[in-house]
């Protein structure tokens, strides 16, 4: 009974993301081949694949940091790829966490978070600071509000970056190899925050090499290779009974 409610609850809310025949080229190299993918609301979709397979590009098409050449990306009912859409408003609904943290170096942890709260969400200064403090505390960084990125460890910086994204109260979170640049001992802390977030029913697209995380937290796992979506399955099937030979080879190489 209880398991049923927890597995059903997330799908009933949360904004889904739809990739509809998405194509992307960089010059003459075709990076995304006709990608069709439903990312259900309130679930975590993990994207795995070899380096250069187009995982980042796919993720970046979600908030139009890259523009697809063809096809559409939908955030709920909103067409992200529509040129006439207010892209800044769309982006404010999507949180993104990068491999290299990308914090603003001359701002404190607090100011990294308040910037968009004030400029985009138009919160007054005290309210923005209050919300930033709450989110820093929730990623275990209470008391470090006034540190600059350079005065924080990689793991702490990445947690600030997560707090910065979450403070905007996004409908969807994107993670692009969020733990790949971290020292091994710092990976755990970041992954556990991501796991909690997944448990709370946030829609997430997570590009990762952490197969255990994918196995435990994902609702579905997607395999990209050479810009093509090769396989998509629930984690048990994806890792337990992969169908395509390429995925089998990939999995045996990484595990």
């Amino acid at each position: 009974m209880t398991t049923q409610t927890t597995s059903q609850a997330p799908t009933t809310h949360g904004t889904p993301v739809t990739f509809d025949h998405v194509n992307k080229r960089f010059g003459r190299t075709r990076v995304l081949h006709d990608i069709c993918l439903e990312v259900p609301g309130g679930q975590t979709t993990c994207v795995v694949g070899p380096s250069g397979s187009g995982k980042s590009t796919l993720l970046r098409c979600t908030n139009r940091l890259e523009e697809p050449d063809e096809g559409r990306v939908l955030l709920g009912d909103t067409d992200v790829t529509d040129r006439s859409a207010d892209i800044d408003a769309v982006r404010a609904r999507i949180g993104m966490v990068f491999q290299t943290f990308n914090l603003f170096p001359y701002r404190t942890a607090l100011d990294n978070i308040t910037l968009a709260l004030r400029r985009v969400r138009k919160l007054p200064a005290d309210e923005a600071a209050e919300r930033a403090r709450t989110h820093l505390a929730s990623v275990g960084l209470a008391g470090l509000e006034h540190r600059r990125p350079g005065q924080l460890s990689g793991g702490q910086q990445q947690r600030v970056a997560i707090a910065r994204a979450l403070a905007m109260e996004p409908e969807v979170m994107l993670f692009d190899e969020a733990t790949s640049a971290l020292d091994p001992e710092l990976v755990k802390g970041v992954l556990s925050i991501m796991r909690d977030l997944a448990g709370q029913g946030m829609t997430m697209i997570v590009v990762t090499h952490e197969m255990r995380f994918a196995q435990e937290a994902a609702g579905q796992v997607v395999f990209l290779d050479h810009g093509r979506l090769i396989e998509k399955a629930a984690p048990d099937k994806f890792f337990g009974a992969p169908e395509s030979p390429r995925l089998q080879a990939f999995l045996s190489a990484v595990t």
Partner: protein
Amino acid sequence: MFEGLQRVWETFFNLDLIGQTLPTLLRVGLPNTLLLAVLASVIGVVVGVVIAAGLMSSKVAVRLPCRMYVDVLRGLPHILTVYLVGQGLPLAGITLFGESTYGYAALAIGLLEGAYMAEIFRAGFQSVEKGQTEAARGLGLSHLETLRFVVFPTGARRVLPPLTGQFILVIKGTALVYLLGLTAGQREMFAIAQDTAIVNASLSPLVAAGLLFLAITVPLTYAVNAWERRLRDGRKDAPTGSATDSATDSATDMDRALAHQGTG
């Protein structure tokens, strides 16, 4: 032997002559040198920012002339540009500053410095990591907000030390306006020293001027070097005390200042 030394000493270090020249150097020369350097730098910064923006433009028709400006002015001997602008403009009937040699002098050096400063601005602002811009745009900030709140604060910090270094070069560069023939009250340090040196057949006044130049440029150079070192290393081993944090945290101050400008 002794007489030979005496002669060397008299040529360069005639204390009487140095003593005579110093008051004029300090009263007239120093203020003129600094004023010229500041005027030229202001012109240089304005020209530099405009040209740098052009250099970063995606339009070839904008980028190309700006690139040419930089290449030509950095490629010519400074003395040639100073002559061409400082003497050329009034001769050609472009009398922007009337009879004031001072104005043409400042303009000549300013245009020259603009080329160097353009490269400083371009390098500084292009050094701001793409990831910062992407993070800002990803959060929903507009292109202009991203420039103003993310690229500018980082770029400005990276540009300030080399810009100050360039200012030191401008201070030295003011000596070139001697060529344009300034009236007595307009003379900067080198002009005063050189005039006095010719009259007295001794180079001691030039030594006096040189010492004054060094008194300005050497401390400034060391200050800039220390500043750049701090900016480079500061990230890794900056103190973690909260006192230093708030003292050095001017990102928000800058925001406030800019916000005030923005809202009038």
